[in-house]
């Protein structure tokens, strides 16, 4: 099993979910995060006090996938999340030792 983590632009979440759905993937966990990177943030000014907000709202998607699907999953995410503009984000792939489905106690690929 592998664990795929992707940082994407928030408004791309729905498209990515749909793309993964067509691969038969229905489970994932999503977190609101702040991204620092090459993309520059916007400036806020409050009564003359300027704050350059150099983080940008991003969304982190995490999903465990069977080894066989990893390549497809990465490709699907990349295709769906891409705008071609700076700040599109990253995909990271990790080894996953074990997965347990809490409800049933199933382990491994069955637990996904």
């Amino acid at each position, binding site marked *: 099993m592998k664990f795929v983590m992707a940082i994407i632009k928030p408004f791309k979440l729905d498209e990515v979910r749909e793309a993964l759905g067509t691969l038969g993937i229905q489970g994932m966990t999503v977190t609101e995060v702040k991204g620092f990177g090459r993309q520059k943030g916007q400036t806020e000014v409050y*009564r*003359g006090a300027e*704050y350059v907000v150099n983080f940008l709202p991003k969304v982190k998607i995490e999903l465990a996938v069977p080894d066989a699907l990893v390549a497809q999953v990465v490709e699907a995410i990349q295709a769906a999340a891409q705008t071609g503009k700076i700040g599109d984000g990253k995909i990271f792939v990790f080894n996953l030792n074990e997965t347990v489905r809490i409800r049933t106690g199933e382990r491994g690929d069955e637990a996904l």
Partner: protein
Amino acid sequence: MIKKLGLTTTALVAALAPVAAFAQDAAPELNSGDTAWMMTSTALVLLMTIPGVALFYAGMVRKKNVLATMMQSFAICALVTVIWMVAGYSLAFGTGNAIIGDLSKVMLFSVGKDSVFPAAATIPESVFLTFQMTFAIITPALIAGAFAERMKFSAMLWFMGLWSLLVYSPICHWVWGGGFLGSDGVLDFAGGTVVHINAGVAGLVCALVLGRRVGFGSENMAPFNLALAVIGASMLWVGWFGFNAGSAVASDGRAGMAMLVTQVATAGAALAWMGAEWVVRGKPSVLGAISGAVAGLVAVTPASGFVLPFGALVIGLAAGVICFWSATWLKHTLGYDDSLDAFGVHGVGGLVGAILTGVFAVEAVGGTPGALEGNIGQVVTQIVGCLATIAWSAVATYVILRVLDMTVGLRVTTEQESDGLDIALHGERMQ
């Protein structure tokens, strides 16, 4: 109201004249319409502090200080109510001398259901003194903007209590209670000197004595929830009708004109700040629009019973631009941390208004002509009023703060400041 006393240089005579005139006919009678409007005005001015100022200020601080900031307005409201009852009203409106009232009205023991304050003879004294109480409440609440996010709550209570008795009551007496500024002909319809310059200057002294917030200039101190500030500013705008038109202490044409010019000046100042910002920064901000509105409200306060709409519009436009400059450029250049611009908006706006009242006053409205009607001396009189207020407010505020610093201590610890006052001082959090 007593402000009417301010119109002539022989104030006491003038003050008693109408009452005397009445007395010839019969005992002055309560007027139910005047009373209705003054009770309404009292509610409106209370609304300005809670939740008005509470929200306006809370909307501009960081999340960890939202509740503590609201708490300041709320606690000041309770504290000053009791202080005004105990001695504040008596010191401000007891006959006394040119400097201070007396103790004849201590604890309000002398006020009954049918009491009447001579210079406000068509309404019950209970209403007059409660209306004045709401002014005594909002003035210290405004100061709190200057030291937001870093003052100890206990020190704040001590400060506000002492300040109310030692600074607010005397200056109120000077201008409206039969004191020397009113006698000298200073025009201040609803509190340009008594409330705004006074609070603004006291705020500046607080900001200087307490020093800057930890992280000022480096950390992101962006307002957490400006929507709260917009609600607060709106309440201020609406409530200010009671503040200004209520200061006519009657439901008449002068009150109506005070309401109209308040509306016009406020709108003008909101547009002016917004416009100045648009030109200088490229974007008109919400914070700018509401700050401008408050600046306009402040500036038209002394003028409201004396000017016509056109004068009010000019006052508003001037206040909007000048306060934009003081809250952005001036503050950052001089480097003091007047957190929410108590001085930049109330102090500076109050000065603009007090002086321009001397320019735009119209005899047909308030009985006194201004510089445009040839009475150039009125501007000088106005400046004298400002200087007297500034001097006493600055000195007395400084002394009170120093004494408190040596006794209870003014500032929270750095750790409390970084945890936020909500949890550190009050044990509560916005979840």
